[in-house]
């Protein structure tokens, strides 16, 4: 747990949006060099997952000449699918100031109420200046993930969500 805690209960931030999505890939099947039946295949991820939690994706990595490169390719695919994004309205206070106590890239703790607690990375901050203060909308999630992209991905799979 980080010492920076964004929490409605503690009065440090207000949860304005919480998006939690099932990852599209939990087991990467990475194809390396070779053709047809002799092609190298490596499984990356938790291969003991079963049922709907096991979500297989094929990764074409013909360039990979070693087992480590195959693993890296698979891990990259899995990491790109982490699916929690939290948006919080934050106001500087005596105890915690954005830019001093935490900045982009820091892992902070978010108490999202009924959705649980997350140690999660700060990926963007929209700062709105008013006469005597500034309001900040902080987006937290995994690297390479943001709400817009996530919503687009979900909309692609669920056309009813398209706007």
């Amino acid at each position, binding site marked *: 747990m980080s010492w920076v805690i964004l929490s409605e209960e503690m009065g440090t931030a207000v949860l*304005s949006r919480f998006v939690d999505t*099932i990852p599209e890939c939990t087991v990467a099947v990475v194809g390396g060099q070779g053709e047809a039946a002799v092609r190298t295949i490596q499984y990356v991820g938790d291969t003991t997952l079963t049922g709907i939690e096991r979500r297989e994706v094929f990764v074409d990595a013909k360039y990979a000449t070693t087992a480590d490169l195959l693993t890296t390719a698979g891990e990259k695919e899995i990491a790109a699918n982490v699916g929690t994004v939290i948006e919080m309205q934050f106001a500087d206070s005596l105890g915690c100031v954005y830019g001093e106590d935490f900045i982009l890239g820091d892992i902070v703790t978010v108490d999202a109420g009924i959705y649980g607690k997350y140690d999660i990375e700060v990926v963007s901050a929209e700062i709105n200046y008013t006469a005597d203060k500034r309001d900040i909308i902080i987006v937290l999630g995994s690297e390479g993930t943001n709400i817009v992209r996530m919503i687009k991905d979900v909309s692609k*799979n669920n056309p*009813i969500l398209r706007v």
Partner: protein
Amino acid sequence: MTLDYDTDRYDAGGSSTTPTRKLPPSHLLDYDTGSYDAGGFSTTPPRVLPASYLITAPEIRICDEDYIPRIVLDGYKNLTYTERHRNRDSWSFEVSRHSVYAQYLIKGRIIHYVTGSSVYALIIKQIDATRDTITVSGNEYADDLLSARIALVNVQDGVGADEIQDSAETAFRHYVNGNIIEATDTYRRDPFLTLEPVDYGRGETVTISARFENLLDLCETIGSLGSIGWRSVVVDDDTKPWGWKIVMSVVEGNDLGEVV
């Protein structure tokens, strides 16, 4: 529920209230105007809709961690369910963030969607909560399960592909069976999904070679080439601790142009 093989429908045990749809007697149908002629007794035919048109809100039952549907969701709004013949059904609805049910709406949970006499299993794939509203969305469970598998049978044997030339239904069942239901790697199986017991060999003959394709994409291709689709319904199964299973069936559309 038992399967009536004459109608390809699951019989809910005589409790269905949906009457059989019948065409009106031919002498009452005015083909020029497309309206019904009441036979001289009235010039204004009463507007009669079949009982199946009577709309009742679907019931949503949230399963607990043991997959037992225990909680009936009350107070949802803006429910949208999109059925697809050869792809994933998708759905969404909204509840108040202050609803007592919000704590049970968790990604990965299964919900039972009860409409008429049919029950469908859905998977919660996304929770999108704003300050006042939670939008819950996802796909039909079996459809989503297809998208969660790739064709891995025989990829390291022989020609390195899983090939079949047969009716579309047989091909569809072959890939679902090999990659999920009786997959060699038992972790690839699913505790809920079953196939309809009988292969009727429906659809046109297709020739398919599969190697690492996403199973949903593969089934969509088979469906398009062979003119079939699929549906999945929940039926009772007392052999399961949670008391239900999903039966996936191939369906063919009817050429309604031949009725007249």
